[in-house]
């Protein structure tokens, strides 16, 4: 068999697959076969490389040339030019906002260079279906070290030294949590991985499970050894079929290799993991609701205390961490707690994976040291806001968080600073919004989500959020009063104080936070019946400037509801009664004749 000359690494993360990775891979493989290159060129599918907006992506080694936005056609050309003739195909390389072309953006761009990858160290590097590749990257070394050399107390000591805090949202110190679970007395204990990643805009857990499932298997096994559990569960959302598939595969191979199951690594320690699939309920991300769901019940939260570390699954002591938290464990064990705590700042140690989404040029996943500023994250790493628009705010922490307005973007991101700003890091979703986004609309949007996802168990959350939403709907419809604003605030504060679980207690956050920073926008909606961002449908109209319109009919042709009338070469007109404010006409007008107005 001839030696492999080139290895092509192709990103098979969820985002690249949805952008067409499968047809790219098929075309690549058939073209390689056509030119009899299939024995000397190896194609490897990896997990998420992070740069979702560039997908589908592939990198050709040994040179490391990075090709982006591929389809089944252009990949053929890359085989013919790059592999056969040794010429880099410039047109499919990364092109920056200023038109600069880069062959190896992964070594040059701040998006890649500023990252410190710990939890996501193997993403885009290993084949998630290969346990050998995971082992080659020091996989299962930490488990071996723990079982052969470390006592459970020593593991907990390292975790405490590392300063790692839960990455799922609440930020509870991980070492302490493990200690509670270890100290709880019981002959049966459980380890759970919370993979019910539900916060809109956060997708790091998905990427880790899809791209490096073994790290979670290894960490859960370490956890079981430490606290004395023999049984583990991972609860994955049904919305993540690929993650379920790859994680299940990892479980099978880990058992074959003796890292899981009976007598792990030849010792008398035994532990196994089962997969549990959710069925579409956001509230199951709350740990006690998740436990109820694993027990085959409705996913409704329990009253805390007792905490799961005392009484969890089937009332037995249970350790529950989220995916990203687990992914940090093997490196901490291997390199020590002190090594981990050198990253980040006081109170927020290590790195955090953030998911950049919304109005930002480079969307995707980035892992950076805690304490980085929002400015670095949005402008240097994220490449700024598209279309030269002005940054307005960044929503963090999903429906449990709040927004950070543009004026605070130099604040370092830590658990404490974000708390002061009235929001949370949450699971790390960062939704970037620009001047075109209306903050009242955003708040309403989150409330719609909460109303729908409230489990209905306690009154403040079930009924309170519904009343808040009604008020917000009145405001965005132009029927709000000043009294409504007061009521909204008061109601929000009550819900936070009186709800049963963490989700209810934080549900009003998006409203209170936008009221805190964008009070003038709320007032404009109520007092002037005006939406400053020109987003709220009832307060906005789209109009055609008769002076500028040349009657090209482009707008009338694109209008999905036939709201635009006019004959060729004569100025057109929009019927506001019919118009849905979809904005399609705005995009096609080449004469700048169409604009939004409010009121």
């Amino acid at each position: 068999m001839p030696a492999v000359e080139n290895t092509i690494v192709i990103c098979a993360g969820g985002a690249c697959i949805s952008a067409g990775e499968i047809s790219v891979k098929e075309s690549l493989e058939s073209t390689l076969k056509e030119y009899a290159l299939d024995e000397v060129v190896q194609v490897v599918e990896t997990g998420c490389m992070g740069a979702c907006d560039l997908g589908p992506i592939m990198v050709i080694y040994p040179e490391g040339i990075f090709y982006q936005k591929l389809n089944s056609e252009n990949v053929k050309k890359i085989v013919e030019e790059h592999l056969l003739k040794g010429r880099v195909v410039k047109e499919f390389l990364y092109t920056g906002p200023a038109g600069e072309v880069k062959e190896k953006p992964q070594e040059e761009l701040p998006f890649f260079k500023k990252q410190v990858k710990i939890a996501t160290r193997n993403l885009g590097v290993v084949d998630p279906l290969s346990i050998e590749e995971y082992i080659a990257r020091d996989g299962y070394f930490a488990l071996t070290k723990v079982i052969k050399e470390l006592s459970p107390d020593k593991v907990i000591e390292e975790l405490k030294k590392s300063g790692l805090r839960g990455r799922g949202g609440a930020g509870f110190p991980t070492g302490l949590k493990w200690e509670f679970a270890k100290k709880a007395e019981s002959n049966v204990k459980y380890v759970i991985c919370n993979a019910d990643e539900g916060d809109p805009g956060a997708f790091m857990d998905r990427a880790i499970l899809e791209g490096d499932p073994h790290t979670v298997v290894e960490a859960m096994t370490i956890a079981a050894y430490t606290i004395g559990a023999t049984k583990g569960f991972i609860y994955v959302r049904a919305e993540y079929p690929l993650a379920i598939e790859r994680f299940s595969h990892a479980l099978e191979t880990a058992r074959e290799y003796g890292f899981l199951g009976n007598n792990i690594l030849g010792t008398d320690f035994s532990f196994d993991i089962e997969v549990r699939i959710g069925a579409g309920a956001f509230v199951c991300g709350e740990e006690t609701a998740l436990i109820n769901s694993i027990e085959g019940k409705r996913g409704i939260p329990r009253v805390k205390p007792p905490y799961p570390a005392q009484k969890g699954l089937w009332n037995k002591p249970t350790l529950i961490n989220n995916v990203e938290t687990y992914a940090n464990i093997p490196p901490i064990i291997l390199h020590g707690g002190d090594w981990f705590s050198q990253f980040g700042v006081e109170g927020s140690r290590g790195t955090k994976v953030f998911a950049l989404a919304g109005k930002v040029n480079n969307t995707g996943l980035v892992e950076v040291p805690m304490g980085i500023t929002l400015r670095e994250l949005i402008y240097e790493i994220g490449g700024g806001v598209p279309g030269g628009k002005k940054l307005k705010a960044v929503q963090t922490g999903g429906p449990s968080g709040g927004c950070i307005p543009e004026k605070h973007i130099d604040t370092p991101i830590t658990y404490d600073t974000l708390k002061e700003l009235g929001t949370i890091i949450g699971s790390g979703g960062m939704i970037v919004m620009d001047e075109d986004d209306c903050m009242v609309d955003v708040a309403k949007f989150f409330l719609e989500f909460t109303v729908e996802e409230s489990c209905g168990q306690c009154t403040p959350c079930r009924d309170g959020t519904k009343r808040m939403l009604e008020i917000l709907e009145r405001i965005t419809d132009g029927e709000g009063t000043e009294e409504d604003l007061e009521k909204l605030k008061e109601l929000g504060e009550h819900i936070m104080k009186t709800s049963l679980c963490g989700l209810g207690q934080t549900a009003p956050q998006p409203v209170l936070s936008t009221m805190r920073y964008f009070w003038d926008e709320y007032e404009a909606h109520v007092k002037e019946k005006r939406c400053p961002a020109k987003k709220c449908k009832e307060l906005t109209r789209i109009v055609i400037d008769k002076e500028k319109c040349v009657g090209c009919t482009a707008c009338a042709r694109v209008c999905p509801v036939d709201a635009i009338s006019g004959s060729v070469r004569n100025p057109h007109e929009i019927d506001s009664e019919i118009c849905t404010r979809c904005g399609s006409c705005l995009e096609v007008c080449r004469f700048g004749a169409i604009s939004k107005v409010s009121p």
Partner: protein
Amino acid sequence: MSFEEVKNTVKKIYEQVKSENLEERDNLINILHAIQEHYGNYIPLEAAEVLKELTGRPLSEIYEVLTFYTMFSTDKRGKYIIRVCKSLPCHVTGGAAVLKSLKDVLGIDYGQTTEDGLFTLEESSCLGLCGVSPVMLINDEAYGNLTPEKVRKIIEEIKEKERSGVK
């Protein structure tokens, strides 16, 4: 479909799931997933009766689990379930226009099924593909970077596939 048929099917699935899992106390949700898959996207209400007998749990408890989770349906749904992400990242990147074109091209609203029994439209919480928003899931396959035109094309392709009888 007779009650006998449901009874036999559910019983078989129950035994199957039971044999796959190491834990026995907790498999109701897994069983419901398997039943739903068997009947093609829905769970006949009779299944709850059968499960009552098999699991010894009260009917009310089984029914509450069956109706709590949005992914379970007791109504017949289409061959293709389209789940449109309605989260903020999709919303700020043009999700509303995508949704509108979907509703137009299918001629149905949320929670409805097309007359030919092919498509059911549902909304979904975040699909975790925010990097390529707006996004939708058709059965287990995700589609990203959607535009109104792209949506039309995807639906047309599925319809075409069905017309030509390709499985």
